[in-house]
């Protein structure tokens, strides 16, 4: 793997830190007038999402991390693993529950997901930003109530539960923002 020096640490660069792949978020040059030059670097641990701040002597190097983002189609889940396919190479990848994390609850099949591979194996999976899902269970709608701003829980066809406005009905298809897990609107 490539080696990167602190002066190559641009936001987005992927390097290995304490055995985990990390993305550089910020790289600040710090130097006392008469002293050693440092780079104060913020990293995001790509496994845990946690932000870590470390300081390196300017000119120090870190090993690059073999990280690739792929657009893969979600095929199915066998209960333990979620299977994806690269539609250009037909290569298949499997992600476990931990890797799927929040993404699993939004997927029913055929969605295109961003799968981050580390050394060729899925590290994280991001569901499409917006998904359209059918409401399978919710309290009866209050017709025309678009003004009070109240909400109620609704269970979707994937099993996910989201808060929806009171006027939304059972069986309707709604649009969800998967980054926040919130209701955006009814399907047009």
């Amino acid at each position: 793997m490539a080696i990167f020096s602190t002066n190559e640490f641009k936001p987005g660069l992927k390097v290995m830190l304490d055995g985990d792949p990390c993305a550089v978020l910020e790289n600040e040059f710090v130097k006392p007038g008469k002293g050693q030059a440092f780079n104060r670097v913020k990293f995001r641990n790509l496994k845990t999402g946690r932000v870590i701040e470390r300081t390196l002597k300017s000119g120090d190097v870190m090993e690059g991390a073999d990280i690739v983002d792929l657009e893969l189609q979600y095929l199915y889940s066998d209960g333990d693993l979620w299977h994806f396919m690269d539609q250009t190479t037909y290569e298949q990848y499997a992600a476990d529950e931990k890797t799927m994390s929040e993404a699993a609850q939004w997927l029913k099949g055929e969605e295109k997901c961003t799968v981050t591979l580390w050394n060729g194996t899925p590290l994280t999976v991001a569901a499409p930003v917006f998904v359209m899902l059918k409401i399978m269970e919710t309290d009866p709608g209050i017709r025309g109530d678009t003004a009070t701003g109240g909400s109620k829980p609704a269970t979707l066809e994937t099993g996910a539960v989201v808060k929806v406005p009171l006027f939304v009905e059972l069986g309707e298809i709604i649009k969800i923002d998967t980054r926040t897990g919130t209701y955006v609107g009814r399907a047009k």
Partner: protein
Amino acid sequence: MITDWQPSASLEILGLRAQVLSQIREFMAKHVILEVETPVLIHSAVSDPNIQSFSINFHKPNQPGEEKLYLHTSPEYAMKRLLAAGSGPIYQIIHVFRDYESGKLHNPEFTLLEWYRPGYDYHNLMDEVGELIHRLGFKQTIRMSYGDVFDDFTGIDPHQINMVELQKVAKKGGLHTAANEKSVLLDFIFSNKIAPNLGHDQPTFIYDYPACQCALAKLNNSVPPQAERFELFISGIEIANGFNELCDVSEQRKRFEQEARYNSQTGKTDHIIDQRLLDAMISGLPECAGVAIGIDRLLMVIKGYDDINLVIAFPVDRA
């Protein structure tokens, strides 16, 4: 595509810069300190291992080949030669150049105010710097020793702590590099854990640095010896660095040679010992204290800015 031809500093800041420079010149005139100019283009690259010179080629019109010259990183050596020649108190406001320095607090070319006071010690000079800073609208300055401020913020004694303990503290503080030089470890702790907290209420002088950070300062007689050096911090930013100037030529030569050895180990092979400075010191550098103040950073802290590009008309990216 339109280029970024416009200044990155507002016209208001450029006005403030002009005003601060004229206030400084007025102050210096009142204190009978002579304004001088020394060359930007010099023969000896800086010896300080932590500072890098830019080099350029000089072609003489009637000579074949070229001569390697450097842009000065500070006017210190030339000004000391003037002191040795009997100039008396002198100052200058000049651009200096440092390679490998760029960031929110660094532009590779920046404006330095440097002055020297024969017959002053560093505490006298801190008084005078404080007076100037106050004249520019800042509150009265306060002073803390390096040892005390280290103890306050980290609970360690920087003069006595051993290497293993120091490495532990640095690692815990987020230093990723395994370092075994005391100076590097102290620099890390100081610039990450201490400096950002300094000078928020009142401009703060820190004085008496560990001997490993002596630069060209005199050492005192304490055990272990400390460098009679000070820095000024305002709003967490290093603004000035000064010291009792080393006048002992054999000690000066020793430090040059130490730096040369270190530089050859780290591959910084460019610099040659500035024999003219040593000869000036042999002839006699008067006992004096000197200080350098970063004018760009001074403007930053006057305005409360956190980016040096906001006070320089054309920083390096649009120079």
